[in-house]
């Protein structure tokens, strides 16, 4: 860690009068094991480095920002960075709102998502996790033909941010995950698939059996799936899919979209944007979340950010730049890679518990649809217009019971409308690998598209 801080300081110290300089530097050690057919297909052991330099030239008509980055700490490469960022800044247009983060007095929590077990665990034991996932999946049911790939991965990262504005922070984290995708023979000669993943700060907390069982169950429940006819059933989302949809919503509440008019929620603060049973906030200070972090991408303390309270929009996720444009203060929500400027976003989305759970939602439902897979989120969601249209597979619900499985269908609606049409928010909160803590939900008014028109 000292090495990182020293490297960052050595560049920041070379700042000239009239310019602000920030250096963000990181180092990660990564292991990845891919397994197929009981054998190790590949084993990757690697260390990567990254350094990003931001220069802001100050002048009376505004500030101009330039960036440079490199994937090496070699002296000849690092030596070019400051001059290159400075040169880039010369070509930017003045912006009064561009500035480095100033320490804002919010205390930094002692969150330290780190496990020594990661470094201590042998490569053989890591391989054993991936092998165990695949073996458990193959043993779970005779209809499992194989697994496409079973993966164990981990990383151990350290980072530092130093700036002329008085920021000097370090951070570190470990993370481990394992996943698989199983292939299951269907009665019609086709193939169904099921995937699952588990993630944790420590590899000792991974549950290979759970990953295998979930992947197999998810594939088996789709056996015999057919294309449905078009309908508008109530849609039941288990926590992982509710988190996907609410993650899209949180993305539409990011300050950069707001100040540039790229979200339908830009001028809706204080208004009812969702059903009153929805309360949602971003809380990276929750140490048990996999999105927990002590500081954001500009070195400010992470903090709880209210987003939606009983359906009313509380506010947005801001970094320093978007907050200054909006005339407010950073919410400590800057996300950052060394390769670019910070931009605001969520880390640990939390939904307040409502009532009921997935099973009770299904039992109460006459005509419904339980989502089991979403496809094409990147091509089917327009965060500016709010239109959503995705590929979907799942199970129809009839008379309170799970009925026929379906595939090759679409699910479509408009995100602002969907929020208002939330019919149930469960109490079955689940912590998800992406860092969110979300319960099951029911949304009405969506179109399930299939055969016919």
């Amino acid at each position, binding site marked *: 860690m000292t090495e990182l801080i020293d490297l960052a300081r050595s560049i920041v110290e070379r700042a000239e009068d009239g310019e602000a300089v920030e250096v963000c530097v990181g180092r990660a050690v990564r292991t990845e094991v891919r397994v197929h057919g009981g054998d190790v297909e590949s084993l990757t052991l690697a260390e990567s480095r990254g350094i990003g330099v931001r220069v802001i030239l100050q002048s009376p008509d505004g500030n101009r920002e330039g960036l440079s980055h490199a994937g090496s700490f070699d002296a000849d490469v690092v030596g070019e960075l400051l001059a290159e960022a400075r040169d880039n800044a010369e070509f930017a247009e003045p912006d009064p709102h561009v500035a480095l983060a100033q320490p804002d007095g919010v205390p930094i929590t002692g969150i330290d998502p780190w496990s020594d077990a990661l470094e201590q665990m042998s490569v053989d034991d890591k391989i054993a996790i991936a092998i165990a996932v695949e073996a458990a999946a193959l043993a779970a049911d005779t209809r499992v033909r*194989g697994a496409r790939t079973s993966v164990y991965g981990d990383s151990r990262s350290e980072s530092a941010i130093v700036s002329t504005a008085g920021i000097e922070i370090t951070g570190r984290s470990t993370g481990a995950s394992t996943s698989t995708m199983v292939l299951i023979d269907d009665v019609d000669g086709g193939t169904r698939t099921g995937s699952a993943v588990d993630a944790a700060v420590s590899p000792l907390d991974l549950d290979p059996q759970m990953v295998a069982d979930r992947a197999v169950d998810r594939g088996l429940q789709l056996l015999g799936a057919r294309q449905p006819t078009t309908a508008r059933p109530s849609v039941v989302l288990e926590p992982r899919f509710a988190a996907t949809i609410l993650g899209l919503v949180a993305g539409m509440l990011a300050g950069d979209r707001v100040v540039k008019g790229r979200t339908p929620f830009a001028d809706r603060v204080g208004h009812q944007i969702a059903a009153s049973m929805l309360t949602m906030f971003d809380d990276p200070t929750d140490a048990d979340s996999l999105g927990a972090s002590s500081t954001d991408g500009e070195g400010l303390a992470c903090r709880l950010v209210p987003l939606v309270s009983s359906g009313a929009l509380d506010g947005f996720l801001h970094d320093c730049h978007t907050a200054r444009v909006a005339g407010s203060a950073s919410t400590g929500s800057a996300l950052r890679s060394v390769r670019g400027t910070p931009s605001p976003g969520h880390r640990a989305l939390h939904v307040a518990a409502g009532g009921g759970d997935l099973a009770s939602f299904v039992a109460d439902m006459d005509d419904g649809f339980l989502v089991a897979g979403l496809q094409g989120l990147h091509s089917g969601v327009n965060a500016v217009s709010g239109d959503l*249209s995705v*590929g979907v597979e799942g199970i129809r619900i009839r008379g309170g019971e799970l009925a026929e499985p379906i595939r090759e269908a679409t699910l479509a609606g408009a995100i602002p409308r969907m929020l208002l049409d939330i019919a149930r928010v469960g109490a079955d909160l689940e912590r998800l690998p992406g860092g969110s803590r979300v319960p099951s939900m029911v949304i009405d008014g969506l179109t399930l598209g299939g055969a016919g028109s």
Partner: protein
Amino acid sequence: MLETELINRTLSTALTTGGEFAEVFVEDKRSSSAVLDDGRVEELTSGRDRGAGIRVVVGETTGFAHTADLSEEGLAGAARAAAAAARGGGGGVREVNVSAIDVSRGTPVRIPPEEVAKATKVGLLTLANEAARGSGSAITQVSARYGDSRRRILVANSDGLLAEDDQIRTLFSVSCVATGDTGLQTGRESAGRTIGFELFDETDVEEMARRAAERALTKLNARPAPSGSVPVVVGPGGGGVLFHEACGHGLEADLVAKSASVFAGRVGEKVAADCVTLIDDGTMAGEWGHFAIDDEGRPAGNNILIKDGVLTDYMWDYLRARKEGRVGSGNGRRQSYQHLPMVRMTNTYISNGTDDPAAIVADTESGVYVAQLGGGQVNTATGDFVFGMTEAYLIENGEITDPIREGNLIGNGPEVLTRIDALGNDFAMGSPGMCGKDGQGVPVGDGTPTLRVESLTVGGTAA
């Protein structure tokens, strides 16, 4: 990029634990980009990534390590790590002597982007911004992005191969937001080629910006898309994404070998309508998915995958081809030196048909006309795929009528291939794409003439 003797020593070190095959991949990539958003040039970035990835193969297992340290010690450390990861049981010394192969580079780059003044690059952004905003007062937001990269690679392996390439790409895109009574709509245009700054001799950024603006404005009047199965006509260039997802990924030999593709074991069979001939061609000079050598040192290939509806071959990487005792097809690619190569597409296209494109539309009683496609996604094991439509219209009584809101279409690859019932004679390449697989992105191109699918499921909200 590295001395031949150092390469030989590194490969020998990689083989000390008894590996059957070792490879050194060296990359030195410089990139620069500039963004104009909200009326202001705001983000100029320069990047440099340099390092080496070393892999060692023992039996079915590949060991891989990478390093940003290109010194003798750095390379030896990575070579030992990769060797240890591959866990060869043997030992001893194996001499390696690599020798360079001649590589046909195609057309040389005329204007290296690194020799173009930053002010000139920034000037393009301003031109695009002004042109888009001039398209109508309903255009409320414009962002434009310029990017270029120069990627020098060297590949050497224990089979004695040594090859180098110098890949220069230039990209420009414009995105607009239009605001109307019905809310916000977006329009996007992009141009990207594996060439230098001469891209802008053939690409008028103001014209691109006006097209992007027009697209957003048109969609302000869009009706909800239909929901359900209808005939779909895809305009020239656009359909490439459809084939990329419907069968391209399913023809990648690594997925085929794991029986994770619906096309496994079907070479020689009829898999598509007679009119379909599908080609993956990395040799198409200047196209976005072009290169001289792939990331395993094989020359780019022109590979026919489906001929007149019959599946003729898969796409191969070097290792899988080597195991099968056949020649690789030049499809081994990786995102960077930090990634293992795998089978990837290059420029994938459907060759020209014979139908008159206007007649294809006129012959469609009712359906959807897709003028621009977004990205897509496929589950190769089931064949189910989706792709987005970012500009689309209704076809009513054989005529293109109202614009419809964007959304996804879903289909099953093997079924859709047999349902291509018209293929135009107006072939065009589509927009530059980034293809993602197992977390790695690589640039790919695609192309098609106008075509019609007898029925596809459109993911709209209208009954």
